C-alpha cells in the first residue's frame, strides 16, 4: 500500500497530511448533514442505490426533494462533487491533480459499477419476503453490501492481470485516505445509533478496552517472539511485522518501523503483506461470522475488529457482517437494529488505533536506549506520541461528540430529522467504503509479493494470524461480548 503511495508523483510540497485531509473532508460532509438537520437540504442530491431487477430503478437521489435529478443525475452530481473536493485534497497532498482527475474518474466508475452490480436482486436479496417481492426463487443472499466484495475482486483483477492499468490508476488509489474519511463520517452515525441505547453503548465501550490490551500487549509480544525465535527474523523486520499483524496493519507497521528507525523499505514490504492478508480475511471472515456467530452478533463484531488488519478492511468487514447477520436474523424472525455490529467493529478498531503513538514511543524508548544504543544517537522523544498519533481519530471523536450531543438534546420531532440527516452523510460513508475496497484490491499484487521473496514473511503472517490471532481474538471477544445483543427494531 505504502509502496504505491511512495511511488506517486509529487507535484508540489504537501500542505496537509492524509490524516488531516480526512478530518477536513469528513467534517465537511458532517457539517453539510447538520445543515440538512437544521432545515437546508444540502446533501439530498447524493446518489443511493436500491436492490434492483429493473436497472432504471437502481439509482436515486438520497432525498425526495432532489427527485427531479433522477438516478443518473444524482450519480453525475455526486461524482462531480467528489472529484472537485478530492482534487483540492490531492493538491493539498502535493499530488499531480492532472493525473488524479482521470484516474479518480475511472476508480469511481469501476467502484460504483461494482456497487450497483452488487445490488442486483439475484445477488443481494436475503429474506423470503424480498425474494417474493422481486419474483425470485433463489438468490446468493450477499445483501447489497456484497458490492464491496465485487469492488474488491475488480481491484484484484486489475492488480494481478492488468498491472500497467493499475499503475496508471495509482494517483487515485488511496485506501487509507478513503477509509479515514469514512471513519470520520462514521463517528456521527455511531453517535446517533448509540444515543438510543446509551447504557448498552457505554457497556460496549468498557468491553472495547479489552481489544487494546489484547492487540498491544498479548498479540504483539507473541508475534514478535515467534518471528524472532522460530523464523529467525532480525529485530528490524520482526518489530514492524509484529505490529502489522497485531495492531492495525499498515499504520502500525509504518509507525513502529519509524520508531525503531528501521529502513523505509521494511515498513513498505510489511504493509504490502498486511494488505494482501486483509483482502483474504475480508473475503472469508464475514461469511464465517455469519455462519457460526449469527446468534452472537457483537462477538462477531469485536472479533472482526481484532482479527482483520488495516482500518479499511476491518471496518468494511464489519459493515458486510452487519448486513449479513442482520439479514440472517431477520430471516429467522429476529429484527436487530442495523449498525450495531459495524459500530462495535469500528469502535474496537478506533480504540486500538488511539494507542499507536504510545506504543511507538515505548518501542522507540527501548530501541534507542537498550537495543541500538549509539553514542550521541537520537533518543526517543515524548513528542513522538503526538507525531505518530493517527489524527483522523480527532475527526471521529468530533463527529461522535457533536452527533451524540445533538441526538441527546433532540425531542421526538427532531430526532427522526437528525437520523435522516446523518443517513445522508452515511451515503458518503458507503461511497468511501466502496472506494476503499476497490483501492485495496488494486494494491494487492500477489505475483509481485511472491517475486519479492516475501514467502518467509508471509509464513510468519499466516502462522500468527491463522494459528493465534484469530483464535485468541475469538476467545476474548466471546469472554467479553457473549450474550450482548444489538437492540431490536422498535
Amino acid at each position, binding site marked *: 500500500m505504502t509502496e504505491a503511495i511512495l511511488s506517486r508523483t509529487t507535484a508540489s510540497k504537501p500542505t496537509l497530511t492524509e490524516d488531516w485531509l480526512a478530518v477536513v473532508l469528513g467534517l465537511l460532509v458532517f457539517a453539510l448533514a447538520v445543515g440538512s438537520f437544521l432545515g437546508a437540504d444540502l446533501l439530498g442530491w447524493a446518489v443511493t442505490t436500491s436492490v434492483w431487477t429493473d436497472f432504471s430503478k437502481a439509482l436515486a437521489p438520497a432525498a425526495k426533494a432532489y427527485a427531479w435529478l433522477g438516478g443518473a443525475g444524482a450519480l453525475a452530481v455526486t461524482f462531480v462533487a467528489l472529484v472537485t473536493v478530492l482534487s483540492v485534497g490531492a493538491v493539498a497532498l502535493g499530488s499531480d491533480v492532472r493525473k488524479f482527475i482521470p484516474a479518480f474518474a475511472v476508480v469511481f466508475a469501476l467502484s460504483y459499477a461494482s456497487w450497483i452490480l452488487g445490488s442486483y436482486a439475484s445477488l443481494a436479496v436475503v429474506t423470503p419476503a424480498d425474494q417474493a417481492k422481486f419474483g425470485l426463487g433463489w438468490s446468493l443472499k450477499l445483501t447489497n453490501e456484497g458490492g464491496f466484495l465485487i469492488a474488491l475482486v475488480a481491484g484484484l483483477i486489475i492488480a494481478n492481470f492488468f498491472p500497467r492499468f493499475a499503475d496508471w490508476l495509482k494517483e487515485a488509489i488511496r485506501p487509507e485516505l478513503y477509509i479515514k474519511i469514512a471513519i470520520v463520517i462514521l463517528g456521527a452515525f455511531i453517535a446517533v445509533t448509540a444515543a438510543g441505547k446509551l*447504557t448498552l453503548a457505554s457497556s460496549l465501550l468498557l*468491553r472495547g*478496552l479489552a481489544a487494546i490490551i*489484547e492487540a*498491544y500487549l498479548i498479540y*504483539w509480544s507473541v508475534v514478535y517472539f515467534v518471528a524472532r525465535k522460530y523464523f529467525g527474523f532480525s529485530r528490524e*523486520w520482526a518489530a514492524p511485522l509484529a505490529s502489522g499483524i497485531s495492531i492495525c496493519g499498515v499504520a502500525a507497521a509504518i509507525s513502529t518501523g519509524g520508531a525503531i528507525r528501521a529502513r523505509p523499505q521494511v515498513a513498505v514490504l510489511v504493509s504490502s503483506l498486511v494488505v494482501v492478508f486483509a483482502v483474504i480475511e475480508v473475503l472469508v471472515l464475514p461469511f464465517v461470522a455469519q455462519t457460526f456467530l449469527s446468534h452472537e452478533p457483537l462477538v462477531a463484531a469485536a472479533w472482526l475488529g481484532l482479527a482483520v488488519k488495516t482500518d479499511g478492511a476491518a471496518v468494511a468487514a464489519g459493515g458486510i457482517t452487519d448486513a449479513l447477520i442482520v439479514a440472517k436474523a431477520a430471516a429467522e424472525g429476529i429484527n436487530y437494529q442495523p449498525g450495531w455490529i459495524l459500530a462495535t467493529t469500528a469502535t474496537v478498531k478506533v480504540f486500538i488505533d488511539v494507542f499507536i503513538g504510545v506504543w511507538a514511543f515505548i518501542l522507540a524508548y527501548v530501541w534507542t536506549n537498550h537495543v541500538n544504543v549509539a553514542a550521541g544517537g537520537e533518543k526517543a522523544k515524548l513528542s513522538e506520541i503526538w507525531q505518530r498519533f493517527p489524527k483522523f481519530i480527532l475527526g471521529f471523536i468530533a463527529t461522535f461528540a457533536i452527533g451524540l450531543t445533538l441526538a441527546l438534546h433532540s425531542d421526538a420531532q427532531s430526532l427522526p430529522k437528525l437520523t435522516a440527516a446523518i443517513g445522508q452523510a452515511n451515503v458518503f460513508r458507503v461511497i468511501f467504503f466502496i472506494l476503499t475496497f476497490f483501492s485495496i484490491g488494486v494494491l494487492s499484487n500477489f505475483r509481485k509479493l511472491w517475486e519479492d*521473496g516475501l514467502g518467509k514473511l508471509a509464513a510468519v503472517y499466516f502462522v500468527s494470524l491463522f494459528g493465534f490471532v484469530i483464535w485468541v481474538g475469538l476467545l476474548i471477544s466471546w469472554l467479553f461480548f457473549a450474550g450482548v445483543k444489538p437492540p431490536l427494531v422498535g
Partner: protein
Amino acid sequence: MSQEELKAEINNAVEPLLPIEKKLIGWSLGTGLVLLAVLLLLSHYFPVS
C-alpha cells in the same frame, strides 16, 4: 535494496534475542494477561444492561 539482497536478508538473519527483548515480551504478556483478568472482573460486576 535489490530483490536478491532482500531475499538474502530475510532468509539469513541471525540475531539472538537480547535480554531486553525477553523482558519486553515477558512484561507485555504478563501485564496484558493481568489487565484482561481485571477487565473481565469489571465486566462481571458491571454487566450489560
